[in-house]
């Protein structure tokens, strides 16, 4: 069981690397925003899995809720701002 959770953590970190490639490489700013959204989703799940692995879920789940509120609402605010202002596309 410990080994299974460790494999899940390693696989999630590899998936974060895949999204990070899109954030660094993406041609427009909207690609970077989508990549940021995917990274924040993975990070929330990663925190909960680490909490189960350490058997301290009651502490890690609160950090995870705070992270979800900050990141997702922040990304939504950036998207609405770009929608009103309009981004420059080369």
């Amino acid at each position, binding site marked *: *069981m410990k080994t*299974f959770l460790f494999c*899940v953590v390693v*696989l*999630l970190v590899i*998936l974060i690397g*895949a*999204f990070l*490639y*899109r954030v660094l490489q*993406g041609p*427009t700013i*909207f*690609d970077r*925003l*989508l*990549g940021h*959204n*995917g990274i924040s*989703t*993975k990070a*929330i*799940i990663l925190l*909960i*899995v680490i909490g*189960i692995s350490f058997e301290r*879920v*009651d502490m890690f*789940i*609160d950090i*995870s*809720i705070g992270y*979800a*509120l900050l990141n*997702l*609402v922040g*990304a*939504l605010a950036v*998207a*609405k701002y*770009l*929608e009103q202002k*309009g*981004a*420059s*596309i080369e």
Partner: protein
Amino acid sequence: MNMLSIIFIVAGLFFMIVAAIGVIRLPDVFSRSHAASLADSLGAFLMLVGIALHEGLGINMLKILVVLALLYILNPVIAHATIRAALRSGLKPWQKETS
């Protein structure tokens, strides 16, 4: 950890891997948003259901379900807002070149 939660977590990991491949391989932002919103939301849903089943009844399961509701509502909303901003700022959808 019972068998059911392991099945749910592995299914969620499968959908997340599909989402990552789609985000790397697809050609433009409109098609990438399918991978980044649909497959990613379903993968997060399945993984959090598996974790909640492992945790059992209690206050921790309730908090995990709160995180699940937040992710499952806000992830497609962010993708939709991003794509609407891309469309309104004049980005053209990708088309296959006719040779």
